[in-house]
């Protein structure tokens, strides 16, 4: 198949910059998720790759081929729209056959190919129906079949699951990934649903306000968010983020809310010594903390009062108020403190994240850039 490369791509709509100087490579045969809130520019990037939008600046390459000025139909892409965009007045068969008809493929070949892709997606019994007679999941498959029938080099998916109900979404999610791997097609998948992105993608690209925030495998995105935005966007509930002051008497120590102190020993210590920021932004994931009765063993501990408890069956989400900061902690179902109770929130060792208060970049990444820079 083919690798897709964006070089310095900017897209402006009037005075609004939707995509700002993006450099991005979508690996050959890889499944890449573009993840971001609505209005972040993720769909714009997809439509730039499709050729529906033209970049205001920068070039787009499919392998060695510069496709920046090519029309969508000269790019050999398959596109699945969020609303499927099936032709309502055509049968399922005609919908799938349409791209081949436009290419003036001989009718016998069209027949074979449509049947093949329909069987592959288990919709061969629906070929005589009209889109309105199909369920959401079936329409979704028809849209996918129409995109795949022309054997595209690049498969583009614009939130294809967002109109399906939750159960179906999880089912099709795994199926979609299987299909993509089986065909080995380069896939770009736009979503605002982080669980979809983390579950399906080989690589996740987090975008906000037209700028790439982080580009990494799902594990890294989750465990080592590059900045405050990624940390607060990924996770359900997202990471707890709050500011804290520092002091550097013997070791770099963070003054946590509630009056406790935590002295940093791990890889953050070196950066802190060098930068000596008077403040940092602290973050940790709700699932990386627990509620304890006594602060023990050098774990970072925050003192607070239980604010609410939300039992979810498999787990509880406990909100703890400390000073004016609300922290969320995921606890096992049997841990159910009373509201108003005084508790300690202990964060797992090595799971505390520190961010530069100015740039909001994870200090760990700053440390790495330094060590790489020499």
């Amino acid at each position, binding site marked *: 198949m083919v690798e897709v490369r964006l070089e310095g791509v900017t897209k402006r709509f009037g005075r609004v910059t939707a995509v700002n100087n993006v450099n991005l490579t979508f690996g050959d045969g890889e499944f890449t998720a573009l993840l971001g809130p609505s209005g972040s520019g993720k769909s714009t990037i997809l439509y730039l790759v499709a050729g529906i939008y033209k970049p205001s600046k920068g070039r787009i390459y499919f392998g060695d081929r510069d496709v920046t000025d090519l029309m969508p139909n000269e790019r050999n892409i398959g596109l699945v729209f969020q609303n*499927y*965009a099936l032709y309502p007045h055509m049968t399922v068969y005609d919908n799938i056959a349409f791209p081949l008809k436009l290419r003036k493929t001989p009718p016998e070949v069209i027949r074979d190919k449509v049947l093949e892709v329909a069987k592959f997606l288990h919709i061969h019994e629906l070929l005589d129906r009209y889109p309105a007679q199909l369920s959401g999941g079936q329409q979704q498959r028809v849209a996918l079949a129409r995109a795949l029938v022309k054997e595209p080099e690049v498969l583009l998916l614009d939130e294809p699951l967002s109109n399906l109900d939750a159960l179906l979404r999880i089912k099709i999610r795994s199926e979609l990934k299987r299909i993509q791997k089986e065909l080995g097609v380069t896939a770009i998948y736009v979503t605002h649903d982080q669980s979809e992105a983390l579950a399906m993608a080989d690589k996740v690209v987090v975008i906000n306000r037209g700028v790439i925030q982080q580009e990494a495998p799902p594990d890294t995105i989750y465990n080592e968010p590059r900045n405050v935005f990624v940390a607060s966007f990924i996770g359900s509930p997202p990471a707890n983020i709050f500011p804290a002051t520092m002091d550097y008497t013997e070791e770099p120590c963070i003054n946590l809310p509630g009056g406790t102190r935590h002295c940093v020993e791990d890889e953050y210590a070196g950066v802190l010594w060098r930068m000596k920021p008077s403040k940092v932004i602290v973050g940790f994931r709700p699932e990386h903390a627990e509620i304890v009765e006594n602060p023990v063993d050098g774990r970072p501990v925050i003192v607070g009062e239980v604010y609410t408890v939300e039992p979810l069956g498999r787990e509880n989400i406990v909100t703890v108020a400390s000073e004016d900061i609300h922290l969320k902690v995921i606890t096992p179902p049997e841990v159910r403190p009373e509201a108003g109770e005084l508790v300690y929130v202990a964060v797992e060792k090595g799971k505390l994240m520190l961010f530069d208060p100015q740039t909001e970049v994870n200090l760990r990444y700053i440390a790495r850039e330094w060590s790489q820079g020499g």
Partner: protein
Amino acid sequence: MGEGIGEGGPLVRGSMGIVIILALLIASLPIIMTYSTLILTSFANTIVSSPWVKFRFTLENWRLFLEGKLAPTAGVVYTPEDILRFIVNTAIVAGGVTLVVLAASVTSAYAFSRMNFFMRSGMMKLLILLHAFPGVALIVGVYAIYVFLNSYIPRDYSVYYSFIFVIIARASLEIPMAIWILKGFFDRVPWELEWATIVDGGSRLTALRTAVLPLVKPGIAAVAIFAFLAGWEDLIYVLVFLPPHEKTLATYIESQLGSGTLETTYLPVVAAAGTLYLIPTIIFFVVTQRLLLETMSGGLKG
């Protein structure tokens, strides 16, 4: 919407149904009366002006009308009128207006809906203003254009010229509203459908033809009906611009009822003309109403 009036229980449906039918009957009684008077008279030997008039069924009126013999009692010698020609004339004007309106409004409504150009919203407002102008008020200006252009037309072609002129002039009165109606239909077709076609390998024109137009069919049907009826019913423009001997059904009926002729006109014959005049309207409506009510949905989720 599931709890609508028509979907209540059997009891509600029964009594409500009767009330609704009664109300509709009363509301439409005057219209039903006039039309049934007209149609009955055309098949009767006298004017059927009330349910108690005794009349005999006859096709004589239709024969006289189609032969162009309009004043059978007058006993004067005159040349019969060429009714077939009037019918063809009416069809030419109505069909021509329909074609011109469709060609102009489909393309411009698509442009107004899909493209960005200088003064787009200003022009949309201007269209409403244009629609608000009564056609009669414009006739002086339109006549001036007619006369001006006519001086360049060879005499032999002036009949064709006046037909084309009537069609275009009458169509222009309908176009602003047609554009508004169609733009509404185009606006409801999602961009993605066109994009899908373009990604699948079609041009923008292919997308318009294969993806968009089938979805705005109800709008096109509505516009076509209005345009056809406007042409079919038009009196003033035809009267002013067509040569006196090229009548349409509307101007023909008018000429029979006009000042000075009403006394000598045998009204049952005119009733036959009026009935014939109604038929295309009814046919056109029956043919297109399925399209009008047809809603295309599904395959698209917003």
